[in-house]
């Protein structure tokens, strides 16, 4: 009996020690573990989706290494430094967005890129972090819950960059950035009646937004509503994706055995539609596990936010983790035919660089929030 007790004590001590160590590196072990497992699953499924293409795996590994490095670096920055630089980062981001519209590079029919000589760069990625940071900064600087005036100004802070990004056009990113800002507002304790007012405002603006959509964006929405209308054109993606998911069944066809992806029926199978490949090969059971993993990361992130010691950290942390969830939800929703195809990757799994780095920087912020707590309460 005693022996076991002793053993437990030693284990407890070891865990404390290792915690102290990772705390020194400003890493949160549960979050890090979740991210690593998710990335590994992502690599495995990418290997299958790419048709066992080693080059793609190597490139994705390089990106992951870069993303983890960025996460590690960001984690070292204390939250109050981030808070201090918020207005500057936001203003800089706005200028870059304006620059994109004026002198940006075109790719796939949209102006999203800025050529900086060495590499191409998407300023909208900066705004993914800068907008929640800015809104959290603004709201934390004022009494909480925010007054109507504060809410109005916060909304302006959201709408301006969102408008510029939507103009590129990049509907998916602009929606995400808008929601990341709105999450800050909602988490700040904005009153129910204000929520209602703004919901009504959005509702009245919706038709206006519809008429400002590009033709291809409208097509996407229409296609979402009725993909079978145009099975070989715009509806093809979603139909083939549903076939891939549905044919996976309960247990899936097995790793590397997805016919929809390997015989190339499924379009965009390494990027936006990688979830379909996963569903086809690992089935419903696999999806439940994957969603559990995502939920674990989200819960951990939310927990970190609740444990944060400043309003700014709380609002920022909460917004970042909710945005991460929205990413996941929108991607899965779109490939399974629940939402229109807006072109968002599945976080940490889809092939592609920029958004992954931004995502990991966000996790870096969360880790920073958690590991830079002053140990007063202890």
């Amino acid at each position: 009996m005693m022996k076991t007790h002793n053993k437990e004590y030693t284990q407890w001590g070891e865990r404390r020690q290792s915690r102290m160590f990772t705390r020194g590196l400003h890493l949160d072990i549960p979050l890090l573990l979740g991210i690593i497992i998710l990335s590994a699953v992502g690599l495995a499924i990418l290997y299958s989706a790419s048709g066992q293409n080693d080059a793609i795996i190597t490139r994705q590994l390089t990106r992951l290494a870069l993303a983890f490095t960025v996460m590690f670096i960001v984690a070292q920055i204390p939250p109050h430094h981030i808070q201090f630089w918020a207005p500057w980062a936001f203003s800089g981001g706005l200028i870059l967005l304006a620059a994109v519209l004026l002198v940006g590079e075109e790719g796939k029919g949209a102006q999203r890129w800025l050529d900086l000589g060495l590499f191409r760069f998407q300023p909208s990625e900066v705004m993914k972090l800068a907008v929640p940071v800015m809104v959290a900064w603004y709201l934390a600087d004022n009494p909480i819950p925010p007054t109507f005036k504060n809410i109005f100004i916060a909304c302006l802070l959201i709408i301006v960059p969102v408008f510029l990004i939507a103009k590129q056009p990049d509907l998916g990113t602009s929606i995400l950035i808008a929601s990341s800002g709105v999450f800050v507002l909602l988490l700040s304790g904005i009153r129910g009646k204000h929520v209602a007012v703004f919901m009504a405002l959005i509702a009245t603006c919706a038709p206006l937004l519809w008429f400002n959509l590009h033709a291809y964006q409208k097509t996407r929405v229409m296609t979402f509503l009725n993909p079978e209308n145009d099975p070989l054109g715009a509806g093809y993606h979603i139909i083939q994706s549903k076939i891939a998911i549905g044919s996976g069944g309960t247990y899936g066809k097995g790793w590397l055995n997805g016919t929809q992806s390997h015989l190339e029926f499924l379009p965009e199978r390494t990027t936006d539609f990688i979830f379909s490949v996963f569903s086809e090969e690992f089935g419903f059971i696999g999806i439940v596990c994957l969603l559990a993993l995502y939920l674990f990361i989200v819960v951990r992130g939310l927990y970190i936010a609740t444990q944060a010691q400043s309003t700014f950290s709380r609002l920022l942390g909460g917004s970042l983790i909710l945005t991460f969830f929205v990413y996941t939800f929108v991607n899965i929703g779109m490939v399974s035919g629940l939402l229109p195809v807006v072109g968002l990757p599945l976080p940490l799994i889809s092939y592609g660089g920029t958004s992954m780095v931004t995502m990991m920087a966000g996790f870096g912020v969360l880790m920073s929030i958690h590991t830079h707590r002053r140990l007063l309460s202890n």
Partner: protein
Amino acid sequence: MARLRIKDHIRESRTFNERAAIALALMIIMILIILARLVYLQIISHEHFSTLAEDNRVSIVPIPPTRGLIYDRNGIILAQNLPAFSLEIVPERVSDMDQTIAAIGEIIEISDDHLKRFNKQLKQKSAFRSIPLRTHLNDVEVARFAANRHRFPGVEIEARLVRDYPYSHLTAHVIGYVGRINVKELKRIDTANYSATHHIGKLGIEKFYEDSLHGTVGFKNIETNVVGRTIRTLERTPPIPGSDLHLTLDIQLQQIADKALGKHRGAAIAIDPRNGEVLAMVSKPSYDPNPFVVGISSKSYRALQSNIDKPLFNRALRGQYPPGSTIKPFVGLAGLENNIITTDKRTFCQGWFSLKGDDHKYRDWKKRGHGTTNLEKAIIESCDVYFYDMSLHLGIDAMSDYLSHFGLGKKTGIDLPGELAGILPSSHWKRQKKGLPWYTGETLISGIGQGYNLTTPLQLASATATLASRGLHSRPHLVKTLGSSLNSELAPVTFDQDDRHNIATGEHWEYMIEAMVKTVHSIHGTARSISKSVSFKIAGKTGTAQVFGIKQDEQYVKEDIAERLRDHALFIAFAPADKPEIAIAVIVENGGSGGSVAAPMARKIIDQYMASKPSL
């Protein structure tokens, strides 16, 4: 201030925690929505989407069965499948298309037409699908390419089977031909079984036995990717080849019959009276069926159609001619069996006959008349007046009833499509078809096979066979056995036989046949010209069918009448008379006289048959 901040801090923290809890609840709800959606897609609709995924993945490629071959009764091939070669290119395997085509052009002729067609398909088809550059290569071209093949990766000779009729004109009216399936046929056929087949029997044996000849289609399931490239073959069900047909036809006899008819238009049919097997069936002129298989040019087809001799017209099956005097043995039996006449009954023939109260003269072919004539003499010399007189007493309906026992006026039911029934007139028939009453005068001319009477050569041959076998009425047929290329078993095809020997007494059968023997072998017989140096007895009856009506008191002068208005010459015969093995009907359009034109043709056929008796 500091206190206030702290208080705020606690409140803010609580508010945040509440909001975070709401957010978590919402996220869990959203995850449940996703899960519900996936339950719907992956569990409830799994089968539906699985099927769609399989449809995406697997293509079913039909494999055509090999068409059954057609042999004559001695195993000589009459319809076969020959490989036809085409030169095909798989674009993705050719690095420099222009250079390759230019180099091929040096060894095999490639016209601009071919090139144009090729380039059109090159733009439309995927790079991994082979595109024909030249079709119908001859053996020399195939050999020349084969020798240079190493120079042309991605260029292949493809062989496909094409129906071929080695005897061409000789068998066209019997075997028919296959041709491309047309829209009308597409509606009729089992499209699954024909999914790989391009040709279908259009005429003759090829059409009648289409189901047996075609076989059963095979399939292979191949896995394809999104652009249709074959990844692998998953499963293969081999096709079942069509059955081979062994005909009753004797191609040598067919050749003799064809030669005997020579340049005449007409038909000759030889039937084995013991079983109804058709030994030879010739319709002249004929045509080459082979161009129809690959697609005859419209110019050639128009030429065939507008030809005044109508080579596409199957006279044996569809030609309807007045039987003329060849009907007399049957009408004679009708008279005997109806007790209108006896073998002793005599009539005086003065060269014409007239009805009471009518000055119309029903002429005999012999202007001076035959004098005192009994039935035997009336057959031997083909006396018309005897039959006018007898028919008058017999009446049209009794005559019609009796003749129907020999199959006149009805389709024989031969295993060929498109047969016509001819006309066996009766008062009932006339009322129905023409809405007019029957006139007695019409009975008279019906009794000598003129008037409304029409028979096809096949009917006449079949009736002759029934007569020869003393009443054994066998359905004429062309197929003896159905074989298959899978096993060596031959399945005999049976056709109905009907023993009608009691339609005449044995005495009357022999009497009539003896009269027909004398038609050939006696000095006054109308067919005496063919009796020379024959070791067995031939029974026969000549006939002459009027094409052109002769006015009263006018003399028929052969030389004065344009060739196409001359009488049709007919002859029916069987041999040996006592135990007949072959029954023949010959019709020569505008041949003039049955005895001098048609009978020698029948003799040639009989001689060939007796010289090389085919095995049963």
